[in-house]
């Protein structure tokens, strides 16, 4: 689960931390990816092609948010909310109904099980882990190239990088597009894994993404960009583990139900946010 959502978390990291662009579009682009992939598979396309189509759809969704923000000067948060709610209707149009089941259809997960010959409870995390790893490695390389440096600077000091001759609008549009393409691929993978696409599967994506990014940063650090990217990925795994643990928790007759998840997520983020401050206080107290 953690790896399955890893791509989305890395996407959220790109917008939220690198571009300094709080982007809620992912709540809509994740189910968009699932929808496009499910419709493509039922229409007879191969699962891999369907993921590619999902990525393109996600990129377009993100680019729309980027264009609303840069060309029409709509506040980034608002621009992303607008795209997000529009996507809800679009997703219903794409699917034609609230959900599509993929039972009996061939998916990348089935394909990977066949190729490796491993049981699905091992091969599925392996597949998702591999995809995430390749993406992280590619991103680390990309962010060290000439274009990558300009991309980093766009989120850090827009005036500076404009003065160095970079069109920041293009970088924001492509960056938010890329982030949403990753969310859409996540949606496609999750849909193929659980055998269904649902219009409501995106609810809370951004919160889960942010929680993972922040937990990753707090636990694994963000000294360099490479470390921060890996931390975001591991944060995603940690977040899912924490949620799973919380769901298994029983105190006498009281047990946590899935409806408590939002509360738990909020508490997790709060703890992750105040941890560094508590750490500093302890260090300061010790050195006295």
């Amino acid at each position, binding site marked *: 689960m953690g790896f399955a959502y890893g791509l989305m978390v890395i996407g959220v990291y790109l917008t939220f931390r690198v571009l300094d662009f709080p982007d809620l579009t992912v709540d809509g682009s994740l189910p968009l990816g699932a929808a496009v992939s499910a419709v493509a598979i039922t229409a007879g396309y191969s699962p891999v092609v369907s993921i590619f189509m999902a990525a393109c759809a996600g990129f377009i969704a993100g680019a729309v948010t980027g264009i609303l923000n840069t060309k029409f000067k709509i506040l980034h948060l608002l621009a992303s909310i607008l795209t997000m709610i529009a996507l809800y209707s679009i997703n219903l149009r794409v699917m034609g109904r609230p959900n599509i089941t993929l039972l009996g259809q061939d998916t990348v997960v089935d394909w990977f099980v066949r190729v490796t010959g491993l049981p699905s409870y091992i091969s599925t995390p392996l597949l998702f882990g591999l995809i995430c790893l390749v993406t992280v490695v590619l991103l680390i390389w990309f962010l*060290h190239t000439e274009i990558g*440096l300009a991309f980093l600077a766009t989120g850090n*000091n827009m005036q500076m990088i404009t003065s160095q*001759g970079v069109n920041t609008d293009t970088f924001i549009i492509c960056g938010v597009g890329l982030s949403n393409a990753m969310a859409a691929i996540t949606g496609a993978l999750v849909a193929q894994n659980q055998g269904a696409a649902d219009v409501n599967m995106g609810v809370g994506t951004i919160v889960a993404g942010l929680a993972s990014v922040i937990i990753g940063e707090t636990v694994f650090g963000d000294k360099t960009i490479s470390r921060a990217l890996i931390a975001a990925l591991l944060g995603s795994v940690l977040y899912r583990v924490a949620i799973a643990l919380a769901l298994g928790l029983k105190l006498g007759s009281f047990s946590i139900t899935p409806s408590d998840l939002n509360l738990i997520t909020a508490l997790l983020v709060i703890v992750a946010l105040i941890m560094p401050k508590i750490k500093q206080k302890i260090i300061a107290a010790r050195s006295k």
Partner: protein
Amino acid sequence: MISITDITKAFNRGDINEVKALTGVNLQVNDGDFITIIGSNGAGKSTFLNAIAGSFSIDSGRIILNDDDITRWPEYKRAALIGRVFQDPLLGTCAGATIEQNLAMANTRGKRRGLGFGVKSKDRDSFRKKLSVLKLGLEDRLKVHTGLLSGGQRQALTMLMATMVRPRLLLLDEHTAALDPKTGGMILDLTAEIVESQNLTALMVTHNMNQAISMGNRLIMFHRGEIVLDIKGEKKKNLKVEDLLRRFSELRGEEGVSDRMLLC
């Protein structure tokens, strides 16, 4: 050769708060000119520089740099020809990137950026050489994030970055105003040295009369969005602070009200 013809700019046009920042400015800058720009607050000095750099589009007029009519060019495109140093030392460098990454970004100004490594190992030697000129010890700290540097160090780095690829025009907007006098003096010396050695064409806004007189070969004064004084060559060499102060108070007298002026 830069020719600026009759440029105007008003902010909040049609609004009760309309501000006429530039009201028909004409200026011919020859290659190799180093012009200092003075004027009271709100006279239009910074607006003038920003108009040339393309921070906003002007209402009317033309800006021609060498043979290019850059009037309608967006800011990032003009950046290929124009180097800038800002008043705020934090604006010129990227805090989240290392010194060498910042220099690498400046090294690709106006060029096509590709997928090759941003910081190339063959560039490091020339980076070190350039940094050693600053005498700040930055040449041994290539991998340090610029966010950890002081304002003076960052401004010195910005100065270097703005002139790394030789700009057709260098714009300096009160670039020593936010620094302590000693650091400001160091940046000013560096400015003179770089402009001289690369034979740059430069415009420098300053509030310091002594600086305005001692630096450059030409001095212009802004008042209410217009150029009211243009002194060059021999006349500029013989100019004294008192002359400028007299001119300032004349302008103030014409107005009948004394707006606050920063005269140092």
